[in-house]
C-alpha cells in the first residue's frame, strides 16, 4: 500500500514543497488512471456527501434529524418500539432513511451493534461506537442506496451491547419491507 501512503502524504501536505513534490505531481499527471487516486477522490467526494448528511458517523442525535428536516432534506423516520420482534414497512421515496429504536436506557450514550442476517448464513456485521440520543433512542440514519441493499437481506437479528463491553442490553428481530407501491 505504499502508493496509497504516498498519496496520503501528498494530500495532507506532509510532502513538502520542493523537487520531490514537483516530481510527484509530474508522475501523477503522467498516470491519471491510478486506482489509488480514484479511491482517494471517491473518498473525499462521497465522504463530503456523507459528512453533510451525518451518515459518516454511526447513529445521530434527534436534534440532527430535526435539523436535516428543517433544511428540507428528504428524510423518512420510522419508529420501531422497544426490543422485540417486528415486521416493518419502510417508505420508498426518501433520500435518507432513519430507523429509531427505543433502547430506553438513559445512562447509555454509545453502544456496539451486532447485526446477523438470519436468511444468509447468519452473516455477522458489527458496528461500533453507535450514538444513543439522551432520549434513550438509537437513531440509525442511512443513505437510501445502502438501506435498500440491507433491506434486501431479509430478517435481521440485532443485538445491542454496552459500548466496549460484551454486556447484551437489547435485542431486536426485524424484517423490513418497502411500502408496496
Amino acid at each position, binding site marked *: 500500500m505504499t502508493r496509497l501512503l504516498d498519496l496520503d502524504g501528498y494530500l495532507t501536505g506532509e510532502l513538502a514543497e520542493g523537487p520531490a513534490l514537483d516530481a510527484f505531481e509530474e508522475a501523477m499527471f503522467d498516470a491519471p488512471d491510478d486506482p489509488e487516486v480514484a479511491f482517494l477522490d471517491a*473518498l473525499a467526494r462521497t465522504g463530503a456527501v456523507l459528512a453533510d448528511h451525518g451518515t459518516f458517523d454511526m447513529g445521530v442525535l434527534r436534534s440532527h434529524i430535526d435539523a436535516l428536516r428543517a433544511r428540507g432534506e428528504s428524510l423518512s423516520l420510522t419508529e420501531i418500539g422497544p426490543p422485540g420482534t417486528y415486521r416493518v414497512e419502510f417508505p420508498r421515496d426518501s433520500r435518507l432513511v432513519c430507523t429509531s429504536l427505543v433502547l430506553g436506557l438513559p445512562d447509555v450514550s454509545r453502544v456496539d451493534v451486532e447485526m446477523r442476517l438470519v436468511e444468509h448464513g447468519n452473516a455477522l456485521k458489527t458496528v461500533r461506537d453507535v450514538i444513543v440520543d439522551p432520549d434513550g433512542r438509537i437513531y440509525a440514519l442511512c443513505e437510501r442506496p445502502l438501506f435498500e441493499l440491507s433491506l434486501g437481506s431479509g430478517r435481521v437479528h440485532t443485538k445491542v451491547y454496552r459500548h466496549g463491553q460484551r454486556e447484551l442490553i437489547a435485542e431486536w428481530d426485524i424484517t423490513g419491507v418497502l411500502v408496496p407501491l
Partner: protein
Amino acid sequence: MVALSDGLRDQPSIPALIAAARAGDRQSEGALVARFAAVVRTFARRRLKTADAVDEFAQDVFLRFVQAVRTGAITEPERTGGFVLGICKNVARERARLAERRSELWQQFGDALAPLEDNPELAKYQLALLEDCLSQISQRSRDVIKHAFVLGESAAEIGVRLEMSEGNVRVVRHRALEALRTCMSGKTFYEEARA
C-alpha cells in the same frame, strides 16, 4: 441612540493611516482595511450574488491594496478612496473577463465536460459502499478520516481536535485508509452475505 457614524469619531485621517502603514505600522494597515471594508463589500454586492463570492472579491481587493500600501504605490494618500475603487474596478473587470471567456469556452466545448458529472449509478453505489465500510471501523478512525480527507485538516489540527498526538493521528489515518481501501475494493457486507 448610537449612530453608525459614532464609531468613526476621533479616528486618524486616511492619509495619516497610509503614512503610518507605509512606515510599517500593521495596526494602521488593519484600520485601513476595516475602513474600506463596507464600501468594497457594497461595490461587490452589487455585482455578485452569494456571500462567499462577495467575501472572496473583498479579499482579492484588499490583498492588492495591502500590497500597494506596503510597496508605496499609493502616491496620493488623500485619494486613497479612488485608489481602492480603481482596484475594485480592475478586480471586477478581470473577473468579468474570466467569466466571459469561460462562457465562450463553455458554449464551444461544454459538452465535452460531461464526464466530470458523476455516473448516477456509480455514485449511488459508492455512497452505499463507503457508508458500509465506514460502519466497520471505529469512531476514532472515522473522525480522523473525515477531518483529514473531507475537511482537509492537517495531522496537527486533528491532533488538537481529537486530543491525540500528531504521530498517532498519522498512524490511525494510515491504518484506516488501508482498511477502507481494502473494504472498498469489494462489495457491501449485504451483497457479500447474499453471494
